[in-house]
């Protein structure tokens, strides 16, 4: 599904990603973890080109994202993204947030988009909020709407950039539940997260980044019980 080869990214003189290569298979749930500043968010944001890689190649399916000739909007239609800060459109209702992109980008009929939107709202447990303004929702509700909004484009893959980091503790669970059920449905997902319990339970693979490099790539059972590298051991010791 995703193939990444020797990905480099610099901001000015600071090199944040120093050559990362990996693949993500269809249906896999991948947790990306690492200390802050390790480049994990930047890594994720390179996949749909919210950050432009300085060097290296990324393929989404058979489309090379890093090829200047590729129509990046077409790639972004296939890759949904959920942000730490939700980024709902504050001037639109919950339902309009969800239907806007399918109608505008895919040319879907309004009625069809709304049917899909309502279905998705039901799925994330917010069927009664369709006419609400995002400003009236709690953080957890906002994030569930954001997930529904991304899913409305029927993406082949979802990227989650620290989806629970901006939430009050009591709201983390409701969001993780939604993501978990998504993983079970076979969605391909990459999740940057600090929720180690969640990563251990849901992920098929854990990518451990540190200092802009991919240090470990292992199934969670293996990574959490017997990390190979000293850096991963130090990291786990600090947080667990």
């Amino acid at each position: 599904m995703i193939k990444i080869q020797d990905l480099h990214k610099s901001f000015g003189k600071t090199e944040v990603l120093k050559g990362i290569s990996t693949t993500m298979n269809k249906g896999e749930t991948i947790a990306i973890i690492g200390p802050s500043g390790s480049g994990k968010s930047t890594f994720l944001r390179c996949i749909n080109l919210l950050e432009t890689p300085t060097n290296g190649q990324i393929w989404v399916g058979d489309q090379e994202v890093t090829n200047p000739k590729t129509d990046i909007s077409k790639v972004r239609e296939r890759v949904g993204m959920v942000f730490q800060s939700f980024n709902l459109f504050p001037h639109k209702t919950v339902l309009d947030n969800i239907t806007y992109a399918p109608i505008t980008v895919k040319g879907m009929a309004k009625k069809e988009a709304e049917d899909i939107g309502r279905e998705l709202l039901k799925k994330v447990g917010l069927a009664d909020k369709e006419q609400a303004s995002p400003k009236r929702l709690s953080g957890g509700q906002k994030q569930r709407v954001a997930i529904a909004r991304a899913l409305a484009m029927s993406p082949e893959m979802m990227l989650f950039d620290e989806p629970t980091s901006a939430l009050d503790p009591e709201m983390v669970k409701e969001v993780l539940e939604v993501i978990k059920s998504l993983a079970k449905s076979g969605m391909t997902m990459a999740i940057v997260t600090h929720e180690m319990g969640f990563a251990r339970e849901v992920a098929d693979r854990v990518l451990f980044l540190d200092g802009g490099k991919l240090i470990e790539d292992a199934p969670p059972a293996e990574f959490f019980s017997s990390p190979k590298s000293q850096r991963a051991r130090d990291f786990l010791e600090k947080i667990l």
Partner: protein
Amino acid sequence: MSLDFTQITSSIPYILQGIGVTLKIVGIAALIGFFLGTLLAICKIGKVKALAWLADIYTSIFRGTPLILQLLLIYYGVPQLFGIQVEAYIAAILAFGLNSGAYISEIIRAGILAVDRGQLEASMALGIPYGKMMKDIILPQAVKNILPALVNEFITLTKESAIVTVIGIMDIMRRSYIVGGNTYRYFESLIFAGFVYYIMVVVLTMLGKLIEKRMSRSD
């Protein structure tokens, strides 16, 4: 020496007819200014360096020279350059529209930049094309934030429109001046003109507040 407004009472309807003239110029100029300002603002924040540069130069020139000079240049300069007579009305609307476009572009630019960057990223991530993102996502949020500044600009425009009197347009200002000349009561007629402008500005302010309230109610 005493103030005697009864001396100009019979001329009041004549002065009031100038309101329509002033409103016409200000209204059309404000529309031109708003669309031109939006366009310039989008050029300024866009990726095409040449357009951003042009928009900056434009703003710099129209903000850096007196409005009355721009008005006179258009009114007297265009016939000299192109051999076509510009109607005073058109010259006034053009001068005010082009001038306020420069100011409004800065207001809108600031408004766009104040919109949370996450809105842009969320739009991009959904594959929403740039134009539609600007029109449906970014600008509606920007305009809401800058509404007070926009109302301020329209108030300035209304008052500054008084300078069209120099190219002979029969606006409130010129009519009061004429009445003053005919009755030898300059003070009364000018005070009355000031009163009319003030009422117009007050109405505009209230309208702005009303729109602001309506917009925040949708929150």
